[in-house]
């Protein structure tokens, strides 16, 4: 239906090695804007590694080597885009909620501040807007000066999402954002993700197949560093083309 839409990311023949170990094998994938793309697969299949490659967080791992290319709006993220600019455009939400040990306000204002915004009124505006977008404004508006470590895990995760949004990214990577949360918080994050895809491109790693089928538009199934199958979520879950995908989603392994 959207065949002609230009992809946000084009991944071509991507291989990634940790020393001698090949963690990603020949990945080819186009990721569309304003959609939720889910990566599923058993532990150690490379889905998180791939996610972290998209905003070059893997650069931090010693001994990592990459060949092939990832293009963001046609520009190679390793050669054409400065890594700092890339991470501004491609934000990340981590598996464990990781707010900084500072106030809620300072957490959300952190990104804008390091990118040079100093004016209080502008920061106030960004903080409020981001917290509203992350659907947590009403819960924390009266305690913005309180330490972000003191709120519940689900609230922490939404503060982290607000913190990522405050940098005004185009893409949000979510690495199992609900795996440490209770079902109600999970529901909130899922609703939020669906809401956010209107304005952002969302790529989400999840262990939870129901989650992938509930909220994602496209799903990629990873196994042993390879993408076994990538397509419309409905098709992957109702009519997988590959036997391995079927075995995984029906719970035969993983």
């Amino acid at each position: 239906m959207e065949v002609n839409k230009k992809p946000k990311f084009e991944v071509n023949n991507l291989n990634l090695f940790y020393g001698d170990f090949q963690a990603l094998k020949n990945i080819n994938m186009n990721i569309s804007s304003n959609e939720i793309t889910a990566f599923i697969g058993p532990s150690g299949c490379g889905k998180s590694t791939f996610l972290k490659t998209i905003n070059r967080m893997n650069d931090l791992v010693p001994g990592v080597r990459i060949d092939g290319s990832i293009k963001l709006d046609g520009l190679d993220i390793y050669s054409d885009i400065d890594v700092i600019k890339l991470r501004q455009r491609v934000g990340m939400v981590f598996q464990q909620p990781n707010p900084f040990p500072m106030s809620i306000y300072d957490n959300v204002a952190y990104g804008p501040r390091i990118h040079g915004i100093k004016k209080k009124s502008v920061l106030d505006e960004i903080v409020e807007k981001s917290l509203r977008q992350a659907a947590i404004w009403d819960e924390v508006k009266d305690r913005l000066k309180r330490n972000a470590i003191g709120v519940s895990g689900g609230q922490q995760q939404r503060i982290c999402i607000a913190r990522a949004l405050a940098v005004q990214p185009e893409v949000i990577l979510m690495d199992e954002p609900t795996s440490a949360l209770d079902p109600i918080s999970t529901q909130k994050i899922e609703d939020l993700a669906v809401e956010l895809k209107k304005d952002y491109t969302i790529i989400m790693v999840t262990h939870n197949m129901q989650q992938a089928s509930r909220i994602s538009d496209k799903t990629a199934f990873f196994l042993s560093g390879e993408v076994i199958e990538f397509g419309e979520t409905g098709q992957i879950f109702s009519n997988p083309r590959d036997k391995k995908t079927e075995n995984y989603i029906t719970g035969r392994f993983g």
Partner: protein
Amino acid sequence: MDNNMGHNEVKPDSVNETDISIQYMKRNVKRDITEKIVETIFLLCALVGVLSVTAIIFFVFYKGIRPFTGEDAYSIKDFLTGTKWAPSENIYGIFYMITASVLSTAGAILVGVPIGVLTAVFISEIAPEGLVKIVKPAIEILAGIPSVLYGAFGLGVVVPLIMKITPEVQGQSLLAVIIVLSIMILPTIVSLSESSIRAVPKKYREASLGLGASKIQTIFQVVLPAAKSGILSATVLGIGRAIGETMAVMMIAGNPTAGMPESIWSMVRPLTTNIAMEMSYASGRQSEMLFATGVVLFIFIMLVNITLIKLTSKAGEK
């Protein structure tokens, strides 16, 4: 011990085979006694420290309070506010020494803490492994050098250098003390700061980098604030070390018998060196006044320790 005594009649060789299982279940008296003895030894060892500190406090305070009591009591006010120390004239004023101790410690902290913290950042966050292998042992060796050698270094290198630029006639000065003390507190600052920086969870760094912060921004905006309580503890320990240092300071301070320090070029006489210089030959009132100096020093150290305990317990709550 009492409850073990009742079982002493049980002798292993007096039972026959069928009783062996029962015998196994019986309390092992010999083992219980050994355990008690060992526990007592532990207790005694622990008491050595507690008794020593009590004895030192009692002794120093007992001797140090004497000159201010009785018939020919010396005025505490004159003692604490005086700026001249002349035992032969029965004048004992230590205010200029308190000032010297505070100034030299403050100076050492002002110079040593930034250098130490930045070294710790360098070792834990920036330096390639090869360089860490050079810097870290160098700092550790610094910790093991006896203070008399720091004094010799100060006298042989720092003082002559100061001689070249000082408006005064001598190189022994507050500045020399500050420089040498700064170096002496470095190992404490570096090793404690480094371990608290390393203890900052990786997830904070990832979050910051993921928002597009640079490495240096991440260090200053996230890592150091998160390591703040450890760095503060390091600073307080550094204060303790600087204020208590004697030997190295004595060799480079100049130790005048009177006069407030007027600039960093002035000679100074910190509390510690006052005690060390005269204690070996002093007697009577002079000796007691040296103990009184010790009491003042002790109060400073106690303040430092209380601060440290407060800081570390606060950090524990977080």
